[in-house]
């Protein structure tokens, strides 16, 4: 009895440590975005000054909108192409299928620094150059394997008899996909979409290489701002982003039970 209680407390302590490790830096940053002192000085004095000055910082706001726009477009493209590719890999047998599936993993493992360099050189070589369009292309290429891997994993749990049953009831290929297969893989599609969004929105390395000075994304802009001299506006914009993205995650988790069978 005594040992189980000790173990239970150890477990709780471990979880507490883990959560602190994950969230403490973020919480401190969020608090400091409301502190008067720009140098993390205590005592804590409440202010919304940094949010007000963020509102004036056109460069940061422009970069934020660029990031959101690129992340949304990347998500849409990757979800559509990735789900279609997963369905094709699931339904059809063809030569080189195994090889093709194996080829999906290296892009996830190759360091982004290397991918970014390679993309920069390649895009220059073929005349795509740099800019937001190049960043978008790069992000789609980076995020697509994640969607395919996640949706394919979901499809592994799909019973092929469901498609057969639908066909035996007179449904054509499109009706089968829309009414039976897609509803089943939807949690995977949502999860894959969140991955794609995160890969794009968090992306620094590849964006840094492919951005032009005036047209850039938020992580690149934050990096540039920190190099010039840190201001709590960065804390403010980061806090806003954290709140919005956590709200999004919680909402999706609420509506789609990930990993749930039913």
């Amino acid at each position: 009895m005594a040992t189980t209680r000790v173990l239970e407390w150890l477990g709780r302590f471990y979880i507490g440590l883990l959560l602190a490790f994950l969230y403490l830096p973020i919480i401190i940053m969020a608090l400091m975005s409301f502190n008067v002192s720009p140098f993390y000085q205590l005592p804590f004095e409440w202010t919304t000054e940094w949010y007000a000055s963020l509102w004036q910082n056109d460069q940061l706001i422009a970069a934020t909108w660029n990031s959101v726009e690129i992340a949304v477009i990347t998500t849409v493209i990757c979800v559509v192409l990735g789900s279609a590719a997963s369905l094709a890999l699931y339904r059809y047998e063809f030569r080189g299928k195994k090889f093709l599936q194996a080829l999906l993993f290296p892009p996830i493992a190759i360091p982004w620094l290397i991918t970014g360099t390679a993309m920069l050189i390649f895009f220059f070589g073929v005349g795509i150059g740099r800019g937001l369009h190049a960043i978008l292309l790069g992000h789609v290429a980076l995020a697509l394997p994640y969607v395919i891997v996640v949706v394919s994993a979901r499809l592994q749990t799909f019973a092929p008899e469901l498609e057969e049953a639908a066909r035996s009831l007179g449904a054509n290929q499109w009706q089968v996909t829309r009414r039976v297969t897609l509803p089943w893989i939807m949690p995977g599609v949502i999860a894959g979409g969140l991955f794609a969004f995160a890969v794009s929105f968090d992306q620094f390395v590849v964006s840094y290489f492919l951005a032009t000075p005036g047209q850039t994304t938020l992580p690149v802009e934050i990096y540039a701002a920190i190099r010039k001299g840190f201001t709590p506006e960065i804390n403010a914009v980061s806090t806003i982003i954290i709140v919005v993205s956590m709200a999004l995650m919680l909402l999706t988790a609420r509506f789609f039970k990930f990993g749930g069978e039913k």
Partner: protein
Amino acid sequence: MAGVQVSDVSRSFGAHKALDNVSIDFADGGFYALLGPSGSGKTTLLRQIAGFDFPDSGRITIGGESVERVPVEKRRIGMVFQNYALFPNMSVADNVAFGLSVRGEAKAVIATEVQRALDLVQLGKLGGRRPHQLSGGQRQRVALARAIVTKPRVLLLDEPLGALDKALRVDMQIELKRIQREIGITTIFVTHDQEEALTMSDRIGILRDGRLVQEGPPEEIYDRPKSEFAATFLGDANIFRGDSTGDGIRLADGTAIAAGVGAKLAAGAKASCAVRPERIRIARDAGTPDGNANMLKGQVSKRIFAGSNSTYFVERAGQTLKVIVQNTGMERLAEGQDVVLRWSPESTVLIAAN
């Protein structure tokens, strides 16, 4: 409704011949069982009839119309799958409505038809449930309602009762048969359960290694099997092997066994006789001689009591014979007891050696 003709259908997967020149005529409104061990080709045959897979050669017609190259969604068949394959994202009513809805039927028509189908399978009140809220037997009924609501020409069932426990299976057998009679639909039913095939179907086709071994009404196949395989796969049988005497066989030790039914074979050919265990009478001694009955002496090696009957295993010349005796309150024979076995030639089927 419509009959189904399968003519000379063959289908290979690589080097494996899953179906080898199979021909069966499924008459309109009949209830057929395709029976065979796993790998016998029964499911492959059902999938050819359904249209999930196309034969390499041969013809399949439904209601006289040639369909061997028509895909499943255009064949107007109804199918029930082994694991039911209910759509998990839809309610029971939406599952049943699916076939009508993809055909673009009006909402009001769909609602009426769905309710009628659910009433038919006695699930009229459960339309709002989700499949995972139902028991196995209820899912089975939903799958059946979904398959018949579109008024298909043929109903195909792929081991539909395989996932149910025994008591429920017997209930569903009766239920399935009732519904089939009520709507009068041609039904083809794949099973590896011989009891299911015997109790439910008007005709049985036995398959083995992609070939049709024998086809006919259950009584005929049971009473007059044409091969050792058919005799032992559908029910239990004692098999004696020897040389044909024209109206029976002679065993290696010279004992003659008279056969009253079965194949007509020339004397001297290799042949077998099959006798059902319940047709053999077992006794302590010969008693009053019985003119034309077959008679063998042996020794009881084992007795298994099963309530309504007992099974005796009798050793005789290196062969173990099985005898089933109804529990009528008669004396039970002990293990080790010398016994006399007797059965009539009419219970003995002469079979050509494979």
